[in-house]
């Protein structure tokens, strides 16, 4: 018997389009209308992209680390069941 193919589709395309539009608009406006300046390097044009990239990577690393260090399997809702 042949296995049924895994379901495909979902919202991935729409989400990619949404994020791409946000990023493209942001970068375009940031570089064309804002001159160099800002109180530090983080406030320069284009720095938002670096912050966004860093935040996404930190999200993934945090989730991985938390899963590895503090994660517990199982579906029960309590952190430490049996304790008051």
């Amino acid at each position, binding site marked *: 018997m042949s296995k049924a193919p895994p379901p495909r589709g979902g919202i991935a395309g729409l989400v990619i389009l949404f994020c791409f539009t*946000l990023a493209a608009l*942001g970068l375009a406006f940031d570089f064309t209308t804002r001159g160099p300046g800002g109180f530090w390097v983080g406030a320069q044009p284009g720095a938002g992209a670096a912050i966004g990239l860093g*935040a996404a990577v930190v999200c993934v690393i945090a989730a991985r680390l938390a*899963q590895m260090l503090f994660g517990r399997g199982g579906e029960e809702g309590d952190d430490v069941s049996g304790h008051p």
Partner: protein
Amino acid sequence: MLAVTLNPGFVPILAGLLVLAAPRVARAPIMALAALTALWLLLDHEFGAASAMAQMGLPVVLLNLDALNRIFGIALLIALIFVAVYSGARRNRYEDAAILMLAGGAVSALFVGDLVSFVAAAALAGLSAAWTVFASPVEGANRAGVRLLIWHGLEGLLFLVGVALHITAGAASSVFARLDVTSMGGACIFAALLIRVGAPMAHVWLKDVVSHASAVGGAALSVFTSMLGVYALARLFPAEPLLVPIGAAMIVIGAIYAAAQDDLRRAGAYALTAQTGVCVALIGVGSPLALAAAEGHAFAAVLAFAALQMALGAVLVRTGDARLSGFTGLARAMPLTTLLMFVGGLAVAGAPGFALYATQTVALEATAQWELRGVWLLIAALSAMLFVSLALRPALVAYRVVAKPSAFNEAPFPMMLGTSLATFLSFAIGLAPRWLYDLMPAELAFQPFAIDRLAPQLEVLGVAGLAYLALHYTALAPKTLPWRTLDIDALYRGPAASAGRWAGVLLLRAYGAWQAGATRSGYAAGRLLGRVAKLCDQPFAPRGVANAAQLLSIGAILVIILVFR
């Protein structure tokens, strides 16, 4: 005279007593009517303090209205209207009463003008919060309620000690005014408020109670608990430098844990901790712009988190939990709720067009200084992290196509209506934030949609989304599995609780052994005395030591009588 002194928070408290006896159909309207009446009382008054009463030599100011407490009061009472609409879907009169008491306590605490009344109102809000958790049908709610009572007990104790020490300086010092954190009294009150806002180490109570509360309770607890602490910090400790690192730590802890949670209600609570951290850090910065940003941010956070927790609560009602790992195909079963959840995620992340964006831009402006660049960076990155954690992740899972889609099972209408109203108001204020800026205590001429403010936010969110999608589709992001993340409370609920239990057992054993030893010694001493008494009690014995002792005793007594008569 009544109109002058009636604190708007008293109305929900009275309504809370009323709903205990009201039929089901009348309870949600009573809640909404109480919120509207309180709002009317609030908006009808001029700024200023009502006449103070004197109790035990201390002034009791039941109403002191100004721009600072007005903005918080409007936020909480509007949120109470949404909660009232949302609560129409279920029957639980105790929870309705508890939520009204919670809202009433929090709103009363906002408007009182002296420390003793504030502590009393905050304690009422704390007890009602615990009652709200106890009224929840979610498994483990009772234990979570007990833990909340312990936290609030500690907070109340610190409040009382702080106030007692503070008013030793004189009765006039009990009036609400700026306190000094270096004094003993001020430090105790400061510590109590740090518990209330969920500062690091004390941040666990919020996620604990929100994740164990019912759908309605989770939304109410998100709205009416920690924001009272933000208000009190802004009132009592503005420009306190200690608050800047504390707020920054709250942002970091909240953002990281929100990214790591499978239970999205818990993730929402962590995200609230992070956004509360923004408010706390801004209060610590203390400039007029930063204080205005903190107050506006608290207002916007109340609406955004009410919307998110309501949407997640609707999922809880239909599916039994709000875990990301169980969201696969949710969009087919609950399309509107899923959409509201996604929009709620955007709202709490401060996406442009939502109220939190309008206040976050002010926060970024207020922290745009060299020495505050760390806080600025955290605030800028927070929206990206919350966008990924609470909007993108749930959307990717919920809209995943499954082979056997679940049957259509949308949330009850009142729940969707309450969630939609909260989302709509957050959106409306985000699009036209002038109304919110006018409510702020400081005069604020600010253009949040200026291109140099809008473009970086679009850039942050867009690039964060694209980067996360890239990591997700290359399988570098962790899979959505049913798992739990331990926090600092696991220490005192796990090893520390075990150690305490063992110490208790050892102490009980030692006490038992001491009691048994004392009993045995008592018996032995009693037997010995009995033998001695028996020896003495032989008046007709022919010989013996006892007889001689008896004669000697009588002789001694006679001699004493003869000598001293």
